[in-house]
């Protein structure tokens, strides 16, 4: 059976201010895959993800997207929760509703399209509908993460991209969030990319692994990557 390639790049370099953090990157992301972007702190994982999402330009090369019109797929982005300032007086519902902002056309605004059912469904899928009226800034780390996943789902994405979703969260909550991602992937047929500096906790979850280390990035199927050169060494060290 042919697998659909959602995105690919050849010999690309990613970094900031024209300085490459990752060079000579070749990869293909299959639709429906669960890609773990792994590596130590400062290895370029987040730089890769931010470039992939179009938040920063590539130093060299670019991504080609396998959509019908060649445009990027719909992204559902879950940033590191610490990036969001708690000064904003937003309820959980307000935060999740932001995911629907793609559709705020002037005519839709005038027609007053009701997005509440969509937002509530996403909150329910993530198990946080009962918190809808609570202030977002009052939530625990795990609850915030679930709300941010619900917000990303409200964008009705083809691809869910998560940046360090398990950082600063206790182990029980980490497990529950990983279970949530597994079940969302199955139910919504999502492609998922997840950045993590913790190799061991999530390695069984991924269908593919993009390993970033020492200015290079190597991608392969999860099983192959476990026995691949430097990546294999690091995996074994951690295991």
């Amino acid at each position: 059976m042919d697998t659909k390639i959602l995105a690919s790049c050849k010999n690309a370099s990613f970094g900031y201010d024209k300085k490459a953090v990752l060079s000579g990157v070749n990869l293909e992301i299959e639709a429906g895959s669960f890609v773990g972007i792994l590596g130590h702190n400062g290895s370029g994982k987040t730089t890769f993800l931010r470039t992939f999402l179009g938040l920063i330009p590539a130093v060299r090369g670019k991504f080609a997207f396998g959509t019908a019109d060649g445009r990027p797929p719909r992204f559902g982005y879950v940033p590191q929760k610490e990036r969001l300032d708690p000064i904003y007086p937003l309820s959980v519902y307000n935060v999740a509703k932001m995911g629907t902002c793609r559709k705020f056309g002037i005519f839709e605004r005038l027609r007053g399209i009701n997005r509440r059912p969509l937002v509530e469904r996403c909150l329910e899928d993530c198990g946080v509908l009962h918190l809808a009226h609570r202030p977002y800034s009052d939530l625990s780390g795990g609850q915030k993460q679930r709300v941010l996943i619900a917000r990303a789902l409200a964008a009705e994405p083809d691809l869910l991209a998560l940046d360090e979703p398990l950082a600063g969260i206790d182990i029980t909550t980490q497990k529950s969030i990983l279970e949530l991602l597994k079940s969302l992937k199955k139910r919504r047929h999502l492609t998922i990319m997840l950045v993590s500096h913790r190799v061991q906790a999530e390695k069984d979850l991924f269908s593919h692994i993009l390993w970033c280390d020492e200015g290079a990035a190597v991608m392969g199927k999860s099983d192959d990557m476990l026995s691949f050169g430097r990546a294999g060494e690091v995996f074994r060290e951690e295991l």
Partner: protein
Amino acid sequence: MIETITEILKPDFLLHNALCASVLMGVVCPLVGAYFVLRRLVFWGVALPQIAASGISFAFLLQGLGFTLLAGSEAQERHLAIIASALFTFAAIAMLLFMERKGKGAAEGRIGVFYALAWATSILFVSTNATGETEMTSLLRGEIIAISPHDFHIMLMFFALAGLAALVFQKEFLLVSFDRDMAVTLGRKVLAWEVLLYLLIGTAISLGVMTAGPLVTFGLLVVPPMAALPWAGGIMSLSLVAAALGGLSAFVGFYFSYAKDMPLGPVIICAACAALIISAGARKAYMLLARIKA
């Protein structure tokens, strides 16, 4: 007290325009000022009104040097001052944003330099122009009383537009302020929305400074949103509560200024600060009561 309030609310009240201008500023400045507070740009709120005042001072300098392209009548002089004020404000916003994107040096330091330079030039530009010096002194003191019907109508038009845009586009402004990256991944034109937001901020500041001076403008940009923040459950409630508190502070300030014969601008700011203190105290009491009930 009731007599005085009835008197100042009459349409034929001598200072009717000054009252309306004060309340209008009190309502509209917090609508854009809320984004200063949320984006933690309060120092911008200090520096930009002073930069706008420097622009007005520069207009006086031009007049003193004989550049009367737009100036001539008193109304044209004020048009020149408004244009210079807006140009200085927008140029400063563009420069501060450019430097912020470059990310070199401390942001507070850059704003401090702009503020110091703006203060110095506000004084220097009018140092050879006696009329300008008097006008600037009154502007820095926040004298709204002298506003003419013509100026009031210009202010009403632009402030109404700025206030309306701040309310209509608040979802977009909130999204690009709260999570710029998310906005990009949703395909929103982040730069365009940010430019529009800063245009509104620049317009409110330059017209506000022209009308009431930098002190009142800064105070009304920042203090009412801070007073409203503990009670807000969303950006709409923050905007509406801040606008209501700003308008109320302006009205109360106007009342005391008229009744006790005090300078209007500083009294408005004291009223806004009193609202902030009352709001913070009431919030603490409310939280304490809620805890006792629980």
